[in-house]
């Protein structure tokens, strides 16, 4: 039995799995500790935050699906090679799910829902003469017999998407209502009224509304995406919607892995500087004042350029395009992490200095508890709320930073799908006449939704965890 594919674990994939495991472990830990459960319960009661969480979850699931990588087995004739042969192209689960989007590649630009190319081409007629015309797209609206049917076809597909999503949504609503009725037992009518009025403890109404929007979007893509280019195509004929969806993983990675890279530094250095004071404090302060005095863009440019040089000199080690993109992405995370840990470190140092003089720390010292244990048992649990707040607030900043850096040209690999690269490409497209606006619009739409949801959620987390915000 030969597997039809061979799994590939990229570096960033491994780190994402690690992050996932850490998050799940934190979830279990938080559920068992009342001081962590209470603020999360407050987050759970916030309708806006929970609606944002649904959107975030959709992004995260997409990113995770895009982090399961493998190489397909080739079914061609095997000439003198032992064992199966696998394609050199690394695919992800998301690629398979969106196969029509990925494979429907046109010649070049086409507008959203277009049937004809955006730019005229010289076409050779059967009689041998040449004429400049807008050729019919290979995939966009290919199923139509008459171009005039387009409006009707789109309407039919939209209605079908609506019906499908309504069906699925109704099933989920039914499940939620059944759960509400059961626990604690109440009549169906009162459960429904409470749900409709938004009076339930968990804001089901807001969550179901935002879930409905997400389902509708997915159903629309599923119904329309195969037949049309919903957001048009780019210069090389790639579906823009597909590019924007593939960019989700890049954005999420930059936002989370950077934090993962910097967190151990910031936590260890900040807590040690604050707790020990003296020369340890001087050293840590010296390091972070020096680092934060260097313009971070300069540091990032230097890092990325030297990495480029290194990869050019060792081209053999990075034969695979996916691997090259991956190393580049990871190193960008590391460089961003190195330049951005100082802020958190400074916050933690200050908080630790405050905690060090608290009576319960003094009592622990008087009991003869060792410094390492005081730091891990007393100080770190009491500064974790700062870490959490900083991480969620920082996330959206990092997603935006990626876009800016890629635009400047020192971001992720130019061949990698990312919102920054899309915006970078749009620089020239905006100068055309008529304007090619859809790449920029797609990148903007996806990034805006993610950052808005992340910010709304982060605000709720901060309100719940920051003791100064509590009433």
């Amino acid at each position, binding site marked *: 039995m030969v597997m039809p594919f061979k799994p590939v674990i990229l570096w960033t994939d491994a780190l994402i799995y690690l992050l996932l495991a850490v998050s799940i472990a934190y979830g279990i830990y938080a559920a068992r500790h*009342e001081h962590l459960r209470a603020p999360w319960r407050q987050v759970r009661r916030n309708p806006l935050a929970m609606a944002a969480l649904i959107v975030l979850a959709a992004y995260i699931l997409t990113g995770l699906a895009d982090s399961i990588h493998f190489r397909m087995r080739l079914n061609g004739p095997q000439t003198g090679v032992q064992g199966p042969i696998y394609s050199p192209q690394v695919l992800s689960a998301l690629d398979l799910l969106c196969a029509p989007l990925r494979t429907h590649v046109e010649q070049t630009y086409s507008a959203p829902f277009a049937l004809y190319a955006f730019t005229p081409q010289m076409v050779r007629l059967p009689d041998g003469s040449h004429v400049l015309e807008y050729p019919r797209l290979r995939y966009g609206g290919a199923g139509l017999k008459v171009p005039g049917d387009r409006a009707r076809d789109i309407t039919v597909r939209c209605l079908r998407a609506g019906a499908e999503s309504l069906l699925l949504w109704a099933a989920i609503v039914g499940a939620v209502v059944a759960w509400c009725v059961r626990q604690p037992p109440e009549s169906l009518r009162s459960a429904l009224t409470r749900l409709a009025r938004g009076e339930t403890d968990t804001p089901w109404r807001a969550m179901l509304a935002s879930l409905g929007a997400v389902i509708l979007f997915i159903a629309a893509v599923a119904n329309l995406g195969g037949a049309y280019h919903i957001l048009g195509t780019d210069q090389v004929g790639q579906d823009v919607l597909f590019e924007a969806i593939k960019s989700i993983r890049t954005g999420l990675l930059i936002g989370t892995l950077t934090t993962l890279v910097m967190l151990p530094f910031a936590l260890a250095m900040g807590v040690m500087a604050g707790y020990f004071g003296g020369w340890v404090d001087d050293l840590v302060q010296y390091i972070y004042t020096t680092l934060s005095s260097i313009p971070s863009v300069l540091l990032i440019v230097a890092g990325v350029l030297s990495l480029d040089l290194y990869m050019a000199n060792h081209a053999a080690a990075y034969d695979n395009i996916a691997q090259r993109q991956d190393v580049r992405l990871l190193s960008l995370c590391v460089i961003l992490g190195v330049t951005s840990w100082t802020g958190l470190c400074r916050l933690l140092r200050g908080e630790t200095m405050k905690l060090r003089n608290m009576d*319960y720390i*003094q009592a622990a010292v*008087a*009991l003869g*508890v060792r410094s390492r244990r005081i730091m891990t048992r007393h100080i770190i*649990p009491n500064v974790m709320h700062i870490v959490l707040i900083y991480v969620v607030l920082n996330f959206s900043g990092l997603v935006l930073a990626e876009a800016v850096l890629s635009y400047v040209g020192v971001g992720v690999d130019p061949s990698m799908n990312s919102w920054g690269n899309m915006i970078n490409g749009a620089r020239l497209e905006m100068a055309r006449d008529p304007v090619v606006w859809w790449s920029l619009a797609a990148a903007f739409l996806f990034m805006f939704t993610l950052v808005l949801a992340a910010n709304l959620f982060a605000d709720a987390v901060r309100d719940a965890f920051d003791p100064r915000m509590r009433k």
Partner: protein
Amino acid sequence: MPALLKIDGLKVWFDTAGGTVRAVDGVSLDIAAGESMALLGESGSGKSVAAMALLQLLPQPAGRIVAGRVLLGERDLLRTPERDMRAVRGRRIAMIFQEPQTSLNPVMTLGDQISEILPASWPRRRRRERVIYWLDAVGISDPERRYREYPHQLSGGMKQRAMIAMALAGEPELLVADEPTTALDVTIQAQILDLLKELQRRTGMAMLFITHDLAVASQVADRVAVMYAGEIVESADRSAFFGGARHPYTQKLFRAVPGRGKRGEMLEVIPGGVPSLMQEFRGCRFADRCDYVWDLCRTTMPAWRVDSGHGVRCHLYGGAAGISTSVAAPRPAEVPVRAIGPSQPLLQVRDLKVHFPIHSSILRRVVGQVRAVDGVTLSVGTGRTLALVGESGCGKTTVGKAILQLVAPTAGEVLFEGTRLDRMTPSALRPLRRRLQVVFQDPYASLDPRMLVSEILEEGMHAQGIDVAAAGRHSRARDLLEQVGLGAEALNRYPHEFSGGQRQRFCIARALSVEPRLIICDEPTSALDVSVQAQILNLLRRLQQELSLSYLFITHNLGVVEYLAHEVAVMYLGRLVETGVVHEVLEGPRHPYTQALLAAVPSIAGNRAGNGPVPPSAGLPRGEAPSPVNPPAGCHYHSRCPQAMAQCRTDYPAPTRISATHWVRCHLYPADPDPS
């Protein structure tokens, strides 16, 4: 006399996530013009909320006034729109708060802040003159200079004086004072109380004085009203109230106050705590904690009964029993103070000095020293209690921390069971730490909020290697809780679920977990209510007798000293001025500072004849303690001492021996020829 302010059936409720808290639940009160009324109650009784409601200063939108009227003259303040309230606040009713540090705007000069109260139409010059007049009236010296100064340039007592000046500048008819002396030292408290009484006499304003302290109430009030769980349970004239309190709650409060008269007996404690205010009460609110409770108390709310001006809300005074029947209290159990003679010193401190360097801001050069502790010599015997007494900032807490080696001493010796602690490395010190423990002042800050009670109790055992097996530690933790009077069900809960008194018991249990010989108690009861304070003091005393523990008891409360201590050391600006056995020092104080401290303690003068407030206390020290950065030359106390002589300004006095155990450092007493 017609009432100036008439509160009628005031109800203030707070909507919280957990439910509705009925903080004030039907309070009625009259205050006549020129009268001073003390509103007495423990924390959480609703006394401050009631005062805030008068001025419509409740936190919005959580607090709402559900019912009632507050009549100031003819006008109902609760139905006065915000625009008109501005004319009432400050002009007709002024308020001073507990915390002078946060009540003044730090970026405005004193003059500007007080001027804001005066009519804006006045010319600048006139306002300035008026402000200086009031600054002078509240006893701030050099008011011309203070006018231009910022709040941080003033000491705590000065700030409270400035707050009073600000309140009085509007020439109000009623002054609401919300615990105005609670944050202040006892000598400053006496000054402020004197000042308030004097100003009241001069201006003829009425005063609503909110306090938790029976003694303070007896000093300032013409009439007293006691609040419990949102309602007034007793109200009477000062003399009637302190002559014979009627409500069981009030009677218990009186018996819970520590003092020397109660030295031989356990203090009266009020079991349990204030009931949750989220419920609708059907019976008497005090029923669960009352010794005289009977069926009626649990089913029917007691009515308000007034007899010759003395009102009380209790079933004991209703119906056939007759209102004049005074209820005889059961005597608390007698616990003899074990007569322990002078014993082997467990802890000896010789000439301890702790100086904190002051660094200049840029180059970190040392520009001066805070002489927090400047030569302290004391010793604590086995099974005995030494009380270290002094005002805030005198360095008494630093002495405790230096003994525990939580701050490094600059000079001197700390000997514990004959071992020098101050020369040891941290790792060598670690095993010794179990002999020497500490209980801090603030029970809310001294327990890690992220740890379970069991984890807190087991931490010390783990660190000291006591009962290495987890099961053994668990059972010890249970025993410890029992020892401090709490149940084992507390083990798997977090500290925030408990009240201040219960938390302080956890702190004591944590200290006991490593079987110490000496516990340094740093004001362990000053953050607690009187009835809870009594519980903790009783507990400490019982533990001392059971385990023959020694205490170094750091406090500013002389009542506690009288109740608990064997020996007393009085500290002023980093140095001891007088030490001795408790009866020697408290009954025959020699040093003028000790005398002043004792004079400043407000006492419950109940059986005194007449109805007027107690006259201003005499012999109070002038001003406030100088900074320990730059202590006065000679005797540190000479700048405030009424008996200062020329010699006091130049020489620091040598110790004078009064008796075998009683020493004093003062030039009034001829120095020992041979101070060995």
